């Protein structure tokens, strides 16, 4: 405020050096002269009194120059009563007017004061001291009024020209004032007066804002906060508000000034920006994942080529050994009782080697991958097709729970089918005395519960959904083995070797599953094994 009051102080000092210009409007000449004499006493020499006997004269004087004070008798030859005051007031500009009245028209003088006259004096009832004081006070009051007017104007201009929203609220939150900028938000500020300011606040924010308002009133400390307006037509505007309290004479907060800013555009831009950022991040992650997959794919390609070569080269010697064993066991007789056992073991060793090589070929046969979108349930159903006979031969019951409409997975269908064929083969062979093979698929993720088979119609890929395939073999207890701890694969192979064979096949499957961003978990129990394959869409 200091910068604001400063020029006025300067003006006052300057004016103090100049004589006070008094316009005395009085038709009774004797009284006028008397007053002039009194005035010269009161204000000493620093005074310049001009007399006007009629309203017309007064009007001419007012037109001519500036006056520090006008002393006005309301009864003039050319005008009487309140009209006299009105006429002078209209012409006096900023000059303060002191009304001089007779005993009989004091009421009129009071009315003039109500309309803006600085004071009134009743003729015959004032002395020089009173007159001097009245003049000094009138001048001073007028100056203060002017200053106040300027200050008010200053604040009005600020309030009415800023785009920010300025509201003054009473301690109950009712509106006392709203700046014109509210027009675009809540409607005409005049119509807002007296209404509660919480009404248009978004229901979700209302309680919080009410609390902040009460805290502000109680503590006298304003707060800054963000909230939303929910306007009649359903639009939502975001605002940022800073409250400040105005205190009454006792120092208690009596009003709250709330300066708000519509930040809807900022919020929306921020949201757009965040969404764009998230998109970029997702794209970047996808790119990284693709790069990883590509790298892994390339690595696998090299391994595949190598594996194919190795597999091919090993198969021929294996063929020779197998034919040799066949010949020896069929046509060569010996007394050695171990010979038959040895040949049998050699034969099983060949079978084991062959199985390892088949695992290697698994990697190589489909080295040129054809990656498309596939439904895991359908791939499983296709992979199971060749197994009817084998299931029958092993007395294995098949329980199929394939969910329809699973989110699609991007992978090479042929390779993945081989993974399933391998797994089914392992499972069936593990159930020497029969059992149950359960194959189940489902999806879970943000849109679905943990329990759930994929509900609803087939849809596009939902981000982050997990597609799961569970393959579980539960063997019937094999009664041909005396101890329950005996290896379940005993009917077909040597106990020591089979585990390794299985692990190798599983290792290859694991590699392939990982290549397509999936994972496989194995849970072994006494009677069976459960394989859980999960893929992120």
């Amino acid at each position, binding site marked *: 405020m200091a910068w604001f009051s400063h020029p006025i102080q300067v003006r006052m000092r300057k004016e103090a050096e100049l004589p006070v210009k008094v316009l005395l409007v009085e038709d009774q000449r004797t009284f006028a002269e008397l007053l002039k004499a009194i005035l010269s006493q009161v204000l000493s020499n620093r005074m310049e009194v001009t007399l006007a006997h009629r309203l017309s004269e007064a009007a001419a004087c007012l037109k001519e120059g500036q006056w520090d004070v006008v002393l006005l008798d309301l009864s003039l030859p050319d005008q009487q009563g309140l009209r006299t005051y009105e006429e002078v007031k209209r012409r006096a500009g900023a000059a303060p007017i002191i009304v001089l009245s007779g005993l009989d028209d004091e009421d009129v003088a009071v009315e003039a004061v109500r309309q803006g006259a600085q004071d009134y004096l009743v003729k015959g009832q004032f002395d020089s001291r009173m007159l001097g004081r009245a003049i000094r006070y009138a001048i001073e009051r007028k100056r203060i009024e002017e200053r106040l007017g300027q200050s008010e104007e200053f604040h009005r201009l600020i309030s009415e020209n800023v785009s920010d929203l300025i509201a003054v609220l009473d301690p109950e939150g009712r509106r006392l004032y709203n700046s014109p900028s509210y027009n675009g938000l809540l409607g005409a500020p005049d119509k807002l007066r007296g209404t509660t300011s919480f009404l248009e606040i978004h229901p979700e924010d209302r309680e919080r804002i009410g609390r902040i308002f009460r805290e502000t009133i109680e503590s006298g400390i304003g707060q800054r906060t963000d909230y939303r307006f929910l306007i009649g037509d359903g639009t939502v505007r975001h605002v940022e508000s800073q409250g400040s309290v105005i205190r009454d004479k006792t120092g208690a907060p009596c009003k709250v000034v709330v300066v708000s800013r519509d930040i809807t555009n900022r919020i929306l831009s921020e949201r757009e920006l965040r969404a764009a950022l998230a998109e970029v991040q997702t794209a970047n992650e996808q790119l990284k994942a693709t790069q990883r997959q590509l790298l892994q794919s390339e690595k696998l390609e090299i391994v595949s080529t190598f594996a194919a070569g190795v*597999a091919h080269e090993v198969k*021929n010697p*294996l063929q020779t050994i*197998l*034919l040799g064993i066949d010949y020896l066991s069929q046509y060569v007789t010996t007394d050695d009782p171990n010979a038959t056992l040895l040949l049998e073991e050699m034969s099983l060793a060949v079978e084991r080697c062959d199985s390892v090589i*088949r695992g290697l070929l698994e990697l190589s046969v489909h080295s040129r991958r054809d990656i498309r979108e596939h439904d895991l349930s359908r791939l499983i159903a296709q992979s199971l097709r060749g197994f009817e006979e084998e299931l029958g031969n092993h007395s294995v019951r098949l329980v199929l729970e394939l969910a329809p409409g699973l989110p699609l997975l991007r992978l090479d269908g042929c390779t993945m089918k081989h993974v399933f064929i391998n797994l089914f083969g392992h499972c069936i062979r593990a159930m020497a005395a029969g059992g149950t093979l359960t194959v189940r698929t489902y999806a879970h993720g943000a849109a679905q519960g943990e329990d759930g088979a994929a509900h609803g119609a087939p849809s596009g890929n939902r981000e982050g959904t997990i597609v799961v395939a569970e393959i579980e073999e539960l063997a019937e207890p094999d009664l041909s083995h005396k101890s329950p701890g005996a290896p379940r694969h005993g009917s077909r192979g040597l106990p020591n070797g089979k585990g390794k064979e299985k692990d190798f096949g599983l290792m290859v499957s694991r590699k392939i599953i990982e290549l397509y961003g999936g994972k496989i978990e194995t849970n072994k129990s006494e009677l069976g094994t459960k394989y859980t394959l999960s893929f992120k869409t």
Partner: protein
Amino acid sequence: MKPKRILIVDDEISITQLLRLNLEKTGQYVVRAENAGAGVCEAAREFKPDLILLDVMLPDIDGGLVAAQLQSDRRLKKVPIIFLTAAVKKEEVEARQGLIGGLPFIAKPVNVKDVISSIEKNLTAQPLN
């Protein structure tokens, strides 16, 4: 019954030798072995086999090409051919019902019992093309 004449073509001498031993020991077959693709047609014309076991991957000529040569010969085209291959897995053979390019094949390693059953099956079968 007159023994069947089997022509075996494989670049692995040990394999042709052992196959010959195993098959001839049964008394059902007479075997001639060839260890390269180049002489197969000539050997076949001379030997007049009832069936040919043919390795797919021969070092000099591709087994498929040899099969084509054999089938283009008027006197040999009725002779059934079974491919022997080390590159394909058993499951795939089963999945294709033992056929590739219209011709039957068996995947290495294979035991004698399966070789014989495949030979017998294809000796009685009508040529497929």
